[in-house]
Structures are given as structure tokens and as C-alpha cells.
């Protein structure tokens, strides 16, 4: 079976640092695949290799069957890349930016003009097309940033954390855009460290940590990995270290992690484990200020797999 995206044993080293180690995953045509992981997990390095920015140390990646190593031009022609940061010319207008990027994808003449008009409609900036991008709000720039990757109607689009640092309204707009593009048949590789985005958008999710793909599957398949366990978030009035070792030894606690006075634990049965946690806290003279019990989600999966919360 031919995949829209296929990553085979991809590796990338920078000196002694192994940024990506033997990563493998696939995405079928027309699906959304999310790469989920904390900062530094190797997501951006992986997509940099897929988009031709970095040469892999070993392994290969294919876009619509074209190897990024052996047929980079063909692979790139089928690929649209939305960088994490805005990569546009601030002193050119929205239209001038789109025209330039369209030309870089080989569009010319009437085809270019009509496609730029279409994309301006898609991103909702037809009425601001003559304004310089430098004068746009962050959300508007994001939309042009996405539009520039859609001009040549790529079969595959890679979006590298496109919602980082923007307002909720623009974030919603972008997520809706991704769904719309996917409904039109476009394969999307979406990287994020927001598990709710991955859960909402994806057919399949690859969870990355420390350069490795540690889990791959659909949302439901990944949740099943956790079993019947429940995630509990506890906030303390003091440093977590005072009670952490006692909690770690508590019966029913399978994984526990602490950051900034907030403790995340994975437990077998919250009804039985919670009283034991309160007892241990009282003995350590630590006061619990809030408790949040959650059904298993992708963050629970990450905690289950790594012993660390995804926010780390």
C-alpha cells in the first residue's frame, strides 16, 4: 500500500546529540496525522527532514511515494509547509507574498492569479490583500502563512505548531481550516504539544519523546494503552518534594510527576487511592489545595509511557 507520508527509520544527529532516533510512521492519503510531544521531542527536526530543510543522518521519508533524499524536487512539489514562525515578507502585501510563493511552486500567469484569488478567499483576507503583511495582526499573519503553503494545491501539508502564541479566536480559525483542508482530501501532518488539538484533529497520532516515536495509533488505540487508570492532578501549598516520595510508594499509584507545586499521578482506582494520598500529605504537614480527577486522555498516555507530564 502506498502512503501519502511514510517515514522509515529516520535518524538525525547533531554531533553527539541524537535529535531523532529511528523514527517510523505513516499517514494514508486524506488523513490527519499528529506528531505530539513536548518541546525538544524531535518533532520539528523530523518535519525539517521531511520538508527537505535537513538531510537525514540515515533512514528515509517519502511524500506521495517520492523519496525526500532521492527525489527531493518531486517530494517538495507535492508538499506544502507551514512553518512554526511567520515566514513572510513584511514589506510586501498579502497578495504580493502569495504571488511570490506561488511562483516558487511553479505557478504562472492566469493560473497563478486565479489561485491567489482563491487562497485569499480561503484565508478570509481578500479585502486586505493590498495591505503590507507587516501591518497585520498575529492571527492574520498566521492565515497568510498557511495560505502560502496552499497555493499549489499540495497533496500533503505539514503544519509545524501553527497555533503557538496566538489568540483563541485565531486558533479556532486555524483548526477549522485544517479540518476543511482535510475534508477536501489533503493529507495533513500536524505537529503540536497541545494534546487536545491532536485529539480533535487526528486520525492517527505519533507521540514523540527524546527523539523517538514512543507510541503510534488512533486516539482510542492510544487511550487503551493506559487501561483503567485515572489521572489525578493535585495542587499543593508547598513544594511537592516534601510528599512526593511518600506518594510514589503509595499502593495504587503507578506513575507520578511534579512540576511547580503541581503533581500529576496515574492511579488504578481514584476512590481508593485519594484517601491514602491525603493521609500521606497530612503526615508530611503538606496541605492539598485542589484535586482534579480526569478520565484517561493523551496526556495520561504520555505520563503512562514516560513517567513525565506532557507539559514538561
Amino acid at each position, binding site marked *: 500500500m502506498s502512503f501519502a507520508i511514510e517515514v522509515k527509520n529516520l535518524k538525525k544527529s547533531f554531533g553527539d546529540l541524537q535529535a531523532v532516533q529511528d523514527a517510523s510512521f505513516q499517514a494514508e492519503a486524506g488523513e490527519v496525522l499528529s506528531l505530539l510531544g513536548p518541546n525538544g521531542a524531535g518533532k520539528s527536526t523530523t518535519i525539517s527532514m521531511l*520538508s*527537505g*530543510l535537513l538531510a537525514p543522518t540515515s533512514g528515509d521519508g517519502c511524500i506521495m511515494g517520492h523519496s525526500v533524499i532521492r527525489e527531493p*524536487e*518531486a517530494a*517538495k*512539489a507535492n*508538499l506544502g*509547509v507551514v*512553518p512554526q*514562525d*511567520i*515566514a*513572510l*515578507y*513584511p*514589506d*510586501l502585501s498579502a497578495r*504580493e507574498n502569495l504571488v*511570490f*510563493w506561488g*511562483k*516558487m*511552486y*511553479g505557478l*504562472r500567469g492566469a493560473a497563478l492569479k486565479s489561485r491567489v484569488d482563491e487562497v485569499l478567499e480561503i484565508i478570509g483576507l481578500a479585502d486586505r490583500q493590498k495591505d503590507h503583511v507587516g501591518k497585520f495582526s498575529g492571527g492574520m499573519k498566521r492565515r497568510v502563512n498557511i495560505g*502560502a503553503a496552499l497555493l499549489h494545491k499540495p497533496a500533503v501539508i505539514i503544519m509545524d505548531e501553527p497555533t503557538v502564541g496566538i489568540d483563541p479566536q485565531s486558533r479556532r480559525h486555524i483548526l477549522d481550516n485544517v479540518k476543511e483542508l482535510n475534508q477536501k482530501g489533503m493529507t495533513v501532518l500536524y505537529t503540536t504539544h497541545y494534546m487536545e488539538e491532536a485529539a480533535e484533529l487526528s486520525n492517527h497520532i505519533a507521540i514523540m519523546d527524546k527523539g523517538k516515536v514512543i507510541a503510534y495509533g488512533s486516539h482510542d488505540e492510544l487511550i487503551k494503552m493506559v487501561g483503567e487508570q485515572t489521572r489525578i492532578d493535585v495542587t499543593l501549598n508547598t513544594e511537592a518534594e516534601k510528599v512526593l516520595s511518600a506518594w510514589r510508594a503509595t499502593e495504587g499509584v503507578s506513575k507520578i510527576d511534579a512540576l511547580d507545586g503541581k503533581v500529576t499521578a496515574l492511579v488504578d482506582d481514584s476512590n481508593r487511592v485519594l484517601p491514602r494520598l491525603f493521609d500521606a500529605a497530612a503526615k508530611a504537614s503538606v496541605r492539598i489545595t485542589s484535586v482534579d480527577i480526569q478520565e484517561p486522555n493523551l496526556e495520561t498516555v504520555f505520563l503512562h509511557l514516560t513517567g513525565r507530564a506532557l507539559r514538561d
Partner: protein
Amino acid sequence: MKILDIAFKDLTRSFRSAFAIGMMVVAPLMLTGLIYFAFGNMSGGDVSMTAIQVGVVNADQLPADSAFEMPIGEIIRSMFFDESVQSWITASDYADEASARSALDKQEIGVAVIIPHNFTERYWSGEKDVQVLVISDPTLSVGPAIVQDMVTMGVDAVAGSGIARQTIMERLEANGIQPDPAQIPTWIERYGNWYRDFQRALFHNPDKAALVVVAPSTGETETADPLARMMGLTMAGQMIFFAFFTGGNSMMSILQEHEEGTLARLFTTPTDRTKILMGKFVAVFITVLLQGMVLMIAGRLAFGVQWGKPVSIALALTGQVFAAVGLGVLLISFVKSTKQGGPVLGGGLTMLGMLGGLFTVNIPGGMPEAFNAIGNFIPQGWVLKGWRMTLDGSAAGDLLIPFLVTVAMGIVMFAIGAMMFRKRYA
């Protein structure tokens, strides 16, 4: 085609940048304009100078039995009242030294010339301490120096007449002829008349002077207007300096794109990296070429610069473009960020410009030979040589060496820089 698309995009961005336009066109024209307004009047041949106010006290009188017809004091005095100096010297007589000093104190005059009592008799009798006194307003410099020179010339004339008399006497005696003492005043007067005419001719009719100073000609159509010549060199110096700056600054767009993320995005498109680099190089080349052409037209219209013969201009401009682009690519290839680029371009190009002689184009007599020798190793120095020859009206054939050297330097620097960029990005 994509090469031209990238070049066109870079050109659009450059010409929309107020900073780039300022450094490309406005700054060189403004600096040349400042020099034009500062020196324009002095160099235009329309010399206007405030007349020197001279007060003369002539106490020299001949005794009744003197053999001379005119006292030396009167000869000196008459120099300041001569019609040939009336346009720049206004002389007045004063009765005595006290009244002349008083006029000086009141700034009615700038210089007082005091010729002492019985100066002629005392001078010819060999008295040692007899002298003409020149007193001046201490705030003045040029006027008193001129008056001092004129008095010295007058006294030299008198001394010369003494030598003339002695020589005549000796020659007559050597030939066994007994000189007639009654003829001596006549000889001295004849010498005096000759000397006066000689001085007038020397300073007021240079073409009739014994010593004619001729400036060496460096070309067949050298302009007669010193201002136009000075402005041509000044404009050329500024144009060269800012052409090199534009070459580096335009090339810095690659660093800017790297920082903006658009370079990485370009690399994700199906565009060969060599084409991306070529597009940027083409943009720099066109920018520097257009800048040179605009500055030449502006220099002609604003300052009347006569650039020279068309083919020579084309060669000089082409050499300038090659050298400026080559050095720009080379310098920026060593720079990691736009923050580094500013100081490197500003400092590096200013130093190279100085060593290349761009800021000393109008130094009278030129720079020392050692300094000029350094210019032979600097691209700016060779570009300046080309423009000097073009401005002097040299033919295209004469420009071949500067042209070939600048183009060769440009290609070598470009090749090294492009190799560095390819290593970094491609």
C-alpha cells in the same frame, strides 16, 4: 525564471526600504552637495575678497641736494596706491605713526606701513637699524601677510638697485671707463622702473611674466572649470563608497531572510538552492548598477559633473559593479547575522574606502606614494583609478587595465563568497 522572480522580489523590497534608498542615493548626493556648497564659490573662479585697508605713513624726504629724484619711501608708498591694486587694497595716508596706530586701534585700517624719517638717506648711507615698520590688526592674517610681502618686494627692489649700481660701477672700471657719479641716480631709476614693470607683469598679466606656472595636463579634455573637476572627483568618491556599501547591504538580505524564516521556507519549495542564491546575487548586481546610473545622472544634473566618454563610463561603471558586488558577497559570507553585518560593513568599508583613497580625492598634490601604493591592493582604489581616468577624458583603451583589474577582483571575491554561501546554505 525563478532566479528573476527572486531577484525581482529582492529589488522590490530594497526600493521600498527608506534606509536602503537613503544609503544608495540620498547620502552620496547629500555629502557631495555639502562639499559643493562649502567650496563652490571659492572654486568657481569668482574670487571675492574684502579689500585690505592699509594706512601709510611716509616720513621719508630727500634733502634739497640729493642726487635722487624720488625717495624710496615714495616708491613703497606708491605701491599701495597703484591703480593695479585698487580692487583689493584701499590705502590712506597718515601724518604720523601715532595717528596710524590710532586708526588701527579703531579698526579703520587693518595694516599700517610706517616709513621712517629720511629713510632714503639713511638706507643709502649704510645705516643698519633703519627699517620699514608693518603693524597689523592681530585678528587678521591674509591681509597683513600680503602687505608684508609687498613691502619686502619694495625693499628688495631698492636692494636690487644697489646691487645694480655696484655691478655697473665694477664693470665700467674693469673696462677702464671712469663712471660719472651724476649718472648713478639715473641708473637706479631705470632699474626701479624695470623692476616695477616686471612685478606688475608677474602678478597682473601672468601670460607676460618671466615665470609661467603650468599645471600638468592628465587628459585631452580636461575641464577648465576647477569646481567641475573637484565635484566630479568628489561625486565619484562618494558613488564608489556607497556602491560598495549597497553591494554589502543588499547581500545582507540573505541573512535577513535567514532570520525572518523565509530562506528556510524557500528551501522547502521545489526550487534549487543554487537558483535561490543566484537570484539574490542578480538582485545585488542590478541594485548596484541602477544606483551607479542614478547617481551619475544626478551628479550631472545637480553638480554639472562631466563624467567623460560613454564607452569609458561604461567600463568604469561595470568595473565598479563587479568589484562592489564581489566584495559585498565576500564580506557578508563571513557574517552570521544582520546585527554583525552592520558594523562589519560600516567599519570594513570605511577603512577600505580610506585606504583606497575615496575620502582624499581632492587633496592638493595628491597623497604620499606609499599611500597610493596601498590603493593598488584595494578594490576601491582601482575603481577610483578608473573613474579618475574617465573624468579626465581618457579613452576606453586607456581604461582597460583598471577595468580588467576591478572585474577580476570582483569575480575572485564573488567566487569565494558564493562558495562560502553554498557551503552554508546549499
